[in-house]
């Protein structure tokens, strides 16, 4: 009989695993699989984007001129910075600096809120111009056939992304709070790593949306 289960310490949370390390390994693996599935979710949207870009090349060339590039770019900086903060938070908790980790996470969450606010501002501009999706499209300055599809995709893609940001902000806030409570340490911080992985994905998706919708 291999000495496995008996020899290694079994933490309460790892009741059905060999040990805590195995449990953490599983948690990471689970998160990776989940992220793969998230990527497929956005793939459906990117595919639609590619298809309509092929169908209406002119629209998709002109579309970015009707975007607020400043706000979009600012948002990119905001999100990338928050991603860096999360990475620093994880480095801190690994080094045992719980206070710093908690603060950095809170900072990242605040930047997430900033992102959503800027996005809201942008949405408000579009709504004022009448650049709404589908049936509600009434943007006179960009009225060639297919233009409403461009904005439809813009709303759907950034909307789905914004939902992810909102979930992420919630997760980061809870993690920040619990870190400051002292629930995590250099020895145990798996939830922080998982939250970080999720946030990096949200960031990464934006790094694709930004050029597609604002630049090219």
């Amino acid at each position: 009989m291999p000495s496995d289960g008996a020899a290694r310490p079994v933490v309460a949370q790892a009741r059905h695993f060999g040990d805590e390390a195995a449990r953490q390994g599983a948690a990471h693996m689970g998160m990776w699989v989940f992220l793969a599935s998230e990527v497929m979710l956005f793939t459906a949207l990117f595919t639609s984007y590619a298809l309509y870009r092929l169908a209406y090349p002119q629209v998709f060339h002109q579309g970015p001129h009707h975007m607020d590039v400043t706000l979009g770019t600012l948002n990119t900086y905001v999100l990338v910075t928050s991603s860096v903060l999360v990475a620093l938070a994880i480095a801190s908790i690994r080094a045992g600096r719980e206070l710093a980790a908690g603060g950095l996470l809170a900072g990242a969450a605040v930047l997430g809120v900033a992102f959503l606010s800027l996005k809201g501002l942008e949405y408000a501009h579009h709504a004022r111009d009448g650049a709404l999706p589908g049936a509600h499209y009434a943007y006179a300055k960009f009225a060639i056939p297919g233009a409403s599809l461009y904005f439809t995709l813009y709303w759907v893609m950034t909307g789905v992304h914004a939902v992810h940001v909102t979930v992420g902000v919630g997760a980061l806030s809870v993690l920040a709070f619990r870190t400051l409570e002292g629930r995590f340490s250099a020895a145990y911080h798996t939830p922080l790593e998982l939250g970080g992985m999720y946030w990096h994905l949200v960031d990464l998706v934006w790094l694709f949306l930004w050029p597609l919708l604002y630049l090219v």
Partner: protein
Amino acid sequence: MSLARAEPTMPEEHYLNSERGLWSWLTTQDHKRVGVMFLVAVLLMFLLGGCYALALRLELLTPEETVMGRLAYNRAFTVHGVVMVWLFLIPSIPTAFGNFLLPLMIGARDVAFPRLNLASFYLYVLGAALTLWAMLQGGVDTGWTFYTPYSTATGTDVMPVLLGVFVVGFSTIITGLNFITTVHTMRAPGVGWMRLPLFVWAIYGTSIIQVLATPVLGMVLVLVALERVAGVGLFDPARGGDPLLYQHLFWFYSHPAVYIMILPGMGVISEAVSVFSRKNPFSYRVLVWSTVGIAFVGFLTWGHHMFVSGQSTFGAGAFSVLSMLVAIFTALKIFTWLSTMYRGSIWVCTPFVYVLGFIFLLFFGGMSGVAVAVTSADLHWHDTYFVVAHFHFIMVGASLMAFLGALHYWFPKMFGRRYPEGLGVGTAVLIIFGFIATFLPQFLLGNQGMPRRYADYPEHFQPLHVASTAGASLLGFGFLIVAIYLGWALLHGAAAGRNPWESRGFEWYSASPPPESNFHEPPAFPHGPHDYARPGIEPEVGHAL
């Protein structure tokens, strides 16, 4: 062969009686209890879908209106399809048997994320409730595929169904994620990848499809919902949108989804063939790699559902050839099973009869799949009863046979009791016969040009429709008998003992029914999972306390 040598006994404490009361079930994190709850749920859905099936067949008994009008007919086949596909066939084997057996088969104490597992069950229940609620509100007439632009334009209440299927999709993703992680991280020492039971391989391959394909479906459903609510116009030609995009994205999920339905079944058959032939699989590796192959190629064939949609000729040709590849992997499996049986000491008991039914129906249904994958032939058969017969042979025929086979094979493991063998075999034969009587006439109908989804039809089709309805009644009767004797066995069946089939499968090393938490410490299995070549080694396994 006789059932077991010594008088079988039941362990005094097991997962069924370790805790009592409804609440302990509803809050359980034990994979076995979650599996049993899923089993009950999918069986209920099967019953519901089955009732609608009988109603449809009844309507088709005569050329004119028999029991319902045309709108009611449209709604009835939509409920039937939605319930059977989304709520029964896709979740059935993975959630019920996968949950129950996967940890036992790899020597683990539970799945990797027990709480997520329970959450997956509740998501399933929520999704099913939403879907059925819409049906009660008057029903939907889109068919199970929700094709746009019809689904965005129809006056019936499509939203809750879209939402329901979306939520069920979440449940599917979570279950798949859980299984993948479990197989990767929780195998007992010595259970290497090439020592995984074939059922585990099948569930693993299925899980990968679930995790990668379901999100695409989820997104498409969201888009259709947005189209209905906000008129976003992505699929509406009037707004410049493209309905074909819907079909592409839908079948990108739904073709792999047909393999979500069939791969677990193939896993069940691989287990059972080996046990009841008392032989090692003819080639374990072929069975494993064809599973992986099917999981992979399944993603590349979706276009064969769109041969008549205005696809380019090149596209059609490519999808036609890729579809054939799937058939090759399937054929490899069939040959391997037959070679396993060849010169085995065959034990004809209930699960084995279902195995035979499965192989026959899969072969027949697979061949008809190759036929409809030939573009020129599909022009004739598309949207006729030929296609209906094809996918019923594969899905109802094969997947359902595997489900029933699994139910009979693992019933003693799950509940510690035996059912009347003779009745089991007889009913299995009845079901297979009823099945063929139901769907064989539909091939002929389709070939003569009877379109699918019509409530009325020209008179000369009637004899074949009558034959089909008669077959469906036999089928329904067969299910009723199964329900009765299994229900009886649950309460009064003789104790099964640990391993009534004398199987070498790893799951039989635990008691029947297994105790809570399965094993006290990771068990060491002394041989491969299907090793019938060297009998006689019966190790001690430390059970959970």
